[in-house]
């Protein structure tokens, strides 16, 4: 099974300015940049946002340009379709603003995920999720679920490529069924295995003392 964490913007160890910056500052800057471009919806700010997010990743996080391109590559088909629709429906500038803003938000979010170790991110989520205790929720479990979600993305991307190769090897590259069904089955099996692994390690279980008499 192949993993594709870097393609999807998961943590890459390093010693850049952003790697050393506190999580709250990175999250604040990422949210602020996204909020400004989304609220303004003007081409000038979209361009500034794109440049700022790209510079943040290349200079701030020392991400090589080629890797930066690879991380946005999976998004390009969707953005392309969106851009064509907006060019036809609304014109060139609205198309640039809409797709540019989405790309800015994604790049801004990746400055956080690329430069923050999973456990630090988990600590941050657990901290932010503390209010769920009021309604009987468990912040640790909430954070763990989010971490597992992030970890699952590269696994599923790898599964997709493995299944595609297997279909090619059998001369079934044009068969949607041969490509989609095994991915779905793999995803369900993966979820089952992950659940079993978490249970075996006692992760995500209630911290309250058990009642031996129950």
């Amino acid at each position, binding site marked *: *099974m*192949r*993993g594709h*964490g*870097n393609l999807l913007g*998961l*943590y890459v*160890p390093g010693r850049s300015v952003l790697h050393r910056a506190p999580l709250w500052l990175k999250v604040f800057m990422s949210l602020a940049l996204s909020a400004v471009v989304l609220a303004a919806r003007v081409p000038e700010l979209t361009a500034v946002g794109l440049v700022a997010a790209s510079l943040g990743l290349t200079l701030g996080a020392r991400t090589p340009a080629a890797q930066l391109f690879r991380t946005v590559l999976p998004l390009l088909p969707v953005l392309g379709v969106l851009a064509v629709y907006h060019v036809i429906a609304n014109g060139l500038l609205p198309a640039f603003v809409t797709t540019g803003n989405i790309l800015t938000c994604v790049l801004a979010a990746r400055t956080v995920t690329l430069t923050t*170790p*999973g*456990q*630090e991110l*988990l*600590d941050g989520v657990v901290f932010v999720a503390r209010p769920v205790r009021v309604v009987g929720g468990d912040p*640790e479990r909430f954070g*763990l679920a989010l*971490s*597992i979600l*992030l*970890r699952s993305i*590269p696994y599923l991307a*790898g599964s997709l490529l493995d299944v595609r190769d297997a279909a090619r090897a059998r001369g079934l590259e044009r068969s949607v069924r041969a490509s989609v069904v095994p991915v779905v089955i793999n995803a369900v099996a993966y979820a089952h*295995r*992950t659940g*079993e*692994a*978490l*249970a*075996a*390690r*006692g*992760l995500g*279980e*209630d*911290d309250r003392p*058990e*009642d*031996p*008499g*129950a």
Partner: protein
Amino acid sequence: MIEFDRVTVRVDADAGAPSGIDGQRTLLHDLTLSLQEPRIAIIGANGSGKSTLLKLINGLVLPTSGTVTSAGLDTRRRGRDVRRRVGFIFTDPLSQLVMPTGREDVELSLRGRIKRPAERRTAAENVLRRFGIADLADRSIYDLSGGERQLLAIAVVAAVEPSILVADEPTTLLDLRNENRIRETLRGVADQLVFTTHNLSFALDSERCLVVDGGRVAFDGAPTDAVDFYRSLCAA
């Protein structure tokens, strides 16, 4: 110390599979055992019930009837506490590792014990160093070899210092060099090791060996005798 007292495990039979009582299939039949030896091997054919027997030990599977006691705790009533004392190693380490890198996975194991992130990070590094895989700490788990992944999976479980370690065919996917390395590593992780294997030389590396066949313990005794019994069972 692990005790099985009249343990039976039944599951709903799959469509088309042979079934017994009320459409259910019995995976283990009325098992009574007391496991005290430091290293216990379990051998048997595929589908004989070995893995179910292992999963009963840390409460991943609960008995349909009877009781299982691990480290002095009933797995049904004290499941969470049992899992904190009984570590489980899966055949495929990728099933076990849930974080993108080894360091993060060991840190995840330690979250319940060490609240301060800096201390946790140091403790995780110490665990990885102890298993000779500190240099792999920040590598993606997908970039590791099978042997490295299995070592990491053991480190992840060993981080919480279990008193009992249960390993389900831990060397099945490994080459000979890595198999030897894993066998050596498993020796010192916990007070008691219970493992299943298809490798009969690995089974001989124990103090007691059970042969499971058709959901029953067909032989229980010295490893050399157990291996002879299993060979004759397979030849029959």
